[in-house]
């Protein structure tokens, strides 16, 4: 009996290990995801976005930011890459003049940390 259980457990682990890792997962150099989560809360980005892990963020003015690390595009325009995302968070109208997302005053560090947090959303 013992050996059957062990075999089952071993095969379960083996099968689990077969789920393919994502080839690419964006990552922000020097970003502090936890600080980013706090910045999202304090800047009240939830007035427009659904953001998992940020209390009160359940508005649908802008797109939901769930699974953001899997999103292919930023604002449907730019490939979802760290430096572009940071630039977007800092000044959306500069990258998409027709966007509804305003330029909210924040430090570059805040934007970097926010991007780091969004890439934690898998």
């Amino acid at each position, binding site marked *: 009996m013992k050996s059957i259980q062990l075999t089952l457990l071993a095969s379960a682990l083996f099968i689990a290990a077969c789920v393919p890792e994502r080839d690419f997962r964006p990552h922000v150099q020097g970003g502090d995801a936890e600080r980013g989560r706090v910045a999202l809360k304090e800047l*009240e*980005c939830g*007035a*427009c976005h659904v953001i998992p892990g940020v209390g009160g963020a359940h508005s649908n*003015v802008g797109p939901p930011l769930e699974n953001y690390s899997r999103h292919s595009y930023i604002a449907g325009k730019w490939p979802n890459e760290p430096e572009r995302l940071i630039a977007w968070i800092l000044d959306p*109208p500069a990258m998409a003049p*027709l966007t509804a*997302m*305003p330029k909210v005053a924040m430090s570059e560090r805040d934007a970097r940390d926010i991007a780091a947090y969004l890439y934690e959303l898998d």
Partner: protein
Amino acid sequence: MRQSALHPAANSGAALIDQLGSVLYVGAALIFVLVMTLAIVGVVAKGRDVAVKHWVIGGGLIFPSVTLTALLLYSLAVGNGLSSIGTTNALQLFLDCFGGRESLPISMDQPLKIHVVGKQWWWEVRYEQPNGGEHVVLANEIRIPVDRPVELVLSTTDVIHSFWVPSLAGKVDMIPGRTTRLRVQTSEVGKFRGICAEYCGGQHALMAFVVVTQSPTAFASWLQLQSQPTSAPSDATMRVGYDAFFSAKCHTCHTIRGTPANGTDGPDLTHVGGRAMLAAGILDNHIGTMAGWIAGPQDIKPGNKMPDDAALTGVELRALSAWLGSLE
């Protein structure tokens, strides 16, 4: 921003209430310990002779009579202090009240009168002008000068609300068809959060406001600014926002003094950019939250009277948010 009855503003009604609370809690604890000690002594020392009569008369009649009378006088003095706001020294009040002096120490200033109207789910704030002119109509933020008694005249146009700034004073209900009053005063400069303390419908929990206490000179210049109208912007971007305000029919509910917007169902927005918070104490006030509130008020505060069919383009939404934010 402070919101705690246990952390009252200096020399405020809340400080008096806090003091009353402390006296009651500490006094009750001491009496409890005393009674428990006597009970234990009674068990341990059984069989020994005691002067029963003395204990019954002393502990059963004299002690409660003296204690309760003192408490009654003290609480009356605190009540007096609350209605003649201006000092937190309860002992002084007590002496003034029962020491034969004619009147309590009331500030010589006339109280500043501010009308606050509770609405589902925000607060209209109207200042009486010193020269007797028209009320200055504002919303969701009350500013008061320090060291001056303020009389809040409270009413409602829909259901029962309750006006409560825990760090400044006790709570007073706003009752349909009636006017209630609350006197507040403090010597502390600061920001205090107030809330509705009586369930008033779905978004009761999102009905808050800010009380800002400031120096009399800062207050006077603020009120002077608030009484001024604004005008149509000349800047091109701002103008896009201004036009969007009217194309989206915001003016049917909102007033912006100095423009044709004169709706009265929603808050006056003449100086909305100068307020600490938006949507009745729910959101910080910056361009992002302004845009989010304009485009999605039903997401943020479901069931409130502001519709979310503004149908503005992204450019218009940003311009409108920027323009409203500039109205300080």
